[in-house]
């Protein structure tokens, strides 16, 4: 069996009729929202060009470079991880916990 390898393409998140789609070239796929895919997150990405990771026929991630997801116990079923931590927020928290003496300076 050939090894499935993830392919990263550029796509665009589109919102129409209260649904969300990702377009890659001429193809358009609906992104199902619900318990595991947050519509509010997708709304923030609407109109933006994002990285779309495709494995076989499935879209496995949007907006992130390919790599391992969280893996422990039972894996979370959400294939759409669309949020990224802002570096500035990370720095603010790093400073906060360094000043508190929890992270060594």
């Amino acid at each position, binding site marked *: 069996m050939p090894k499935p390898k993830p392919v990263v393409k550029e796509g665009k998140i589109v919102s129409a009729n209260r649904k969300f789609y990702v377009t890659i070239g001429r193809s358009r796929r609906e992104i199902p929202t619900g318990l595991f895919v947050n519509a509010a997150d997708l709304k923030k990405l609407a109109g933006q060009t994002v990285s779309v990771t495709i494995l076989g026929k499935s879209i496995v991630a949007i907006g992130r470079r390919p790599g*391992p997801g*969280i*893996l422990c*116990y*039972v894996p979370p079923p*959400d294939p759409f991880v669309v949020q990224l931590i802002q570096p500035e*927020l990370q720095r603010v*928290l790093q400073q906060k*916990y360094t000043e508190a003496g929890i992270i060594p300076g």
Partner: protein
Amino acid sequence: MEVTQACHHRCLHCYNYWRERRAPVRDPQTLSRAEILDLIRKVRLDTPLRQVGLSGGEPLLRPDLPEIATDLAAEGLSIVVITSGALLTDELLERFPADTMFEFTLFSIDGGLHDRIAGRPGAFKKVIRGIQRAGQHNFRLALACVINRLNAHDVLQTIELGIALKAEAALFNRINLSRPMLPLADQLVPSAEQLQQALDAAEDAASRYGIPVAVSVPIPPCVIDVSRYKHLHFGWCPRGGDGAYYTISYNGLLRPCNHSSVILGDLRSEGFAEIVLRESTREFWQPVPPECETCEHPLRESCRGGCPAASHECYGTSARIDPFVTRCLSA
């Protein structure tokens, strides 16, 4: 893949069936580096494997762990090392493949409480230092925390500390029960109210900082209706279906998951498909507890009574409702 059963911590919530045993890092049955590679290649013949989680015990107790990870990464697999983080040194980190993700455990922002839960004085400082080193080496990091009665109150700060240490994702699992840790259940299982407060805090962190937070050990809707949390990613037992999560023991025995001591087969002598397609394997996940048959919640089919492995470990059958449910609701 549990590369060793040895662990230098004694976590209060440890569900491993061998938790009372001081397992050696290697015993005569432990798979060698070459055997692990052969075994994973064999599994790939039968299933589109993409990721391997290297866990234990504490996987970093194995001196050849970086080389095991390198072998598997060379096969095109994503590698996640599930570790306390306390043993991460610069020398060790330099030997790991660049795309390795380290999933480290942080139980609280309070060092004393972390040490108490981890069962080892001084663990907190070592974990913080180890994770800081991994961040300096630009490895991908994820925070893992087990919510219990002792630490349910400081979830927001713990996630903040994880982000400060460069974690890009967080895993917040509620405690899962097994027979060896049942004597501690009353001390450790949070009440539904405490669990809800913890999830509220995780939701707050996820929405405030944009960190993906997964809550992977099932929380049945009769405990808390998780559909109210829009920023948390809840997991359910895949029960052998898509995304199934088999565990390979240090000696090559295949189990349904890391929560279960049930041996499905021996990968050293049998094929992966041969084992998982067996009727006896499928039967492990089939039962729905009688209490759940009348459940009308939309998540009924996802939940099916919570964690079947926990029921099996505690009661000897997966046909009973997850013991967490009764303990949590009566706490």
